[in-house]
């Protein structure tokens, strides 16, 4: 079990800076998830930790030791790749044993570790098979098993679930969570899937254009996104954004006028904005409910009945579209004129720089 520190790490390709100076401390035993859109630099960062990509500047420490110049095999890490990266010409057992033989682990110990990993990952009947004889889910379990038998200081996962179908992805996600609980080893996981990040992480690092947008627990990031980018990236459906200008302060909280002219009381403290500032109000669907008495009105055009809740896509009078949440048995129908109730304590305001202000 090892902590990982990235100190002033920088990555350039020629004259293009992919990752500006990056500092991060990953605690020993932590399950940290790098979350961000494609091309944000999260995989590059993981590959730099693994030693597969050289750093342009800065230092990487694993277990307190500077490994910046060390070869991948000397970093006490195991990595699970998106496309499994199993050795196709070797059996499952040989795949698992290959790395251990390279570092001269005794044969009996190799057998013990493979047996244990195969039992844990339900691979016992497949040890003599080759990867081509396995399903996608089984191959991913073998890839995880190959990492587990190394008993590394930390695991690195590079979008390991993205090749699996939805049902298998959910199951494997739970297996990974169990694996972390059992091994309590440091795990660094890269994904663009917010559900994976929210369900697996003890801490999420949201990245955008090579920089950290926000770092925190899943709930912190969901409830108090630091920037408009984070607010829009986390949550499904995505947060609603509506242009707004501050008009008054009531009880030390900002009141804003929305683009359609209606006024909305928020829970955001008044010091958040200048009076002439252009703001954007952000509210999640679950904090935007149908209420006929509300002055904010629009027409429901698409209804999504998801079973446990109903999502209503509403077009406001100014043509702006928002998504609200209704009860699972709500009678709302497409074409209905509906009122929208904003929960003031869950309205966020974003200034022109994209920084967020939340209700106190």
């Amino acid at each position, binding site marked *: 079990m090892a902590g990982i520190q990235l100190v002033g790490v920088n990555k350039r390709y020629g004259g293009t800076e992919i990752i500006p100076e990056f500092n991060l401390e990953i605690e020993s035993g932590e399950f940290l998830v790098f979350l961000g859109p494609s091309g944000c630099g999260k995989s590059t960062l993981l590959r730099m930790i693994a030693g597969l990509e050289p750093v342009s500047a800065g230092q990487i420490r694993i277990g307190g030791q500077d490994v910046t110049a060390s070869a991948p*095999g000397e970093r006490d*890490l195991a990595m699970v790749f*998106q496309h499994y*990266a*199993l050795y*196709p*010409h070797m059996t499952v057992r040989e795949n698992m044993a290959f*790395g251990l033989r*390279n570092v001269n682990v005794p044969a009996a110990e190799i057998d013990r570790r493979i047996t244990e990993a195969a039992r844990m990952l339900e691979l016992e009947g497949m040890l003599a098979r080759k990867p081509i004889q396995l399903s996608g889910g089984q191959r991913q379990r073998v890839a995880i098993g190959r990492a587990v038998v190394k008993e590394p200081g930390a695991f690195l996962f590079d979008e390991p679930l993205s090749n699996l179908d939805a049902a298998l992805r959910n199951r494997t996600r739970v297996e990974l969570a169990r694996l972390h609980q059992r091994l309590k080893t440091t795990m660094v996981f890269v994904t663009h899937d917010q559900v994976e990040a929210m369900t697996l992480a003890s801490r999420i690092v949201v990245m955008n254009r090579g920089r950290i947008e926000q770092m925190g627990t899943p709930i912190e990031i969901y409830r108090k996104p630091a920037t408009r980018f984070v607010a829009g990236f986390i949550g499904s459906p995505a947060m609603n954004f509506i242009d707004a200008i501050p008009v008054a302060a009531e009880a030390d909280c900002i009141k804003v006028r929305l683009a359609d002219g209606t006024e909305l009381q928020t829970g955001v403290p008044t010091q958040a904005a200048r009076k002439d500032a252009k703001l954007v109000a952000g509210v999640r669907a679950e904090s935007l409910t149908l209420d006929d008495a509300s002055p904010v009105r629009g027409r429901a055009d698409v209804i999504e009945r998801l079973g446990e809740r109903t999502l209503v896509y509403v077009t406001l009078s100014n043509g702006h579209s928002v998504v609200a949440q209704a009860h699972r048995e709500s009678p709302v129908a497409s074409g209905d004129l509906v009122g929208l109730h904003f929960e003031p304590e869950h309205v966020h305001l974003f200034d022109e720089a994209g920084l967020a202000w939340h209700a106190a």
Partner: protein
Amino acid sequence: MSARQHAGRRMGDHLILAAVMVLALLWIAPLAWVFALSFKPNAFLAQHTDVVLGAPYTLKNYTDILGTSSVFRWIANSCIVSVTQTLLTLVLCSLAGYGFARTAFPGQKALYVFVLAGLAVPEQAVVIPLHRLFADLDLHNTYSGLILPRLAAPFGVFLMTQYFKAIPKDIEEAALLDSTPRWKIFLRIVLPLSIPAQATLGIFTFLTAWNDYLWPLISASKPDMYTLTLGLAATQSNFAQSEGIGYLMAQAVFAGLPIFVIYLFFQKHIVSAVAGTTVR
């Protein structure tokens, strides 16, 4: 798919099969004719070459070949040259291909283009300089002289480079994380994965080496160093080929026998190599 569409498709398949069978028969007919004529007396063939199945038959053409004192020496020479050339070509092209596919070094792209430019140089254009070079090095009439010029194989380098490039990089990266040194990644991971390409290159190199006539004709002037193709050609005293046709046909069959045997063993790989597919 409706029953009519299904029937139409089956009809189409049958037509294609029939056309392929006709082409196969057209292709094999001259070979069968050569094979049949090789069992006919030369005197008979001086009058008739159109009687394929009927008598007379003779094995004299083959016994004459085997009676040529040097024929087994030539077979041995051909085997030594072809096998060595094939093995060395595989080693060199694999190493060069891996270098071009996976390692970065200054001038890599220019060097690769330079190697590939060798594909555009006709063999006849370099024969005289090669002859001078090997004469100066005193390598004519040696195995090295027969083998070395053919080891410059730009097609092989190209084939292996492209194949190595197609192997997912993350497999090698997984091996790096498994504490595998680069040479071991090449030997234990990359080479086993490139067996289809190795088989393709090996088969083509062997066939080319076995059938090679021009360079052995220049380099090997002593009968002891003849390859089989060169040796058999040297035994043909009648330049116009108007006599001794049976003997000539027997030579052709005899020279092709080892290739036929190899084909029987490597049939799957050869078909795959020609069709451009991989063998699982």
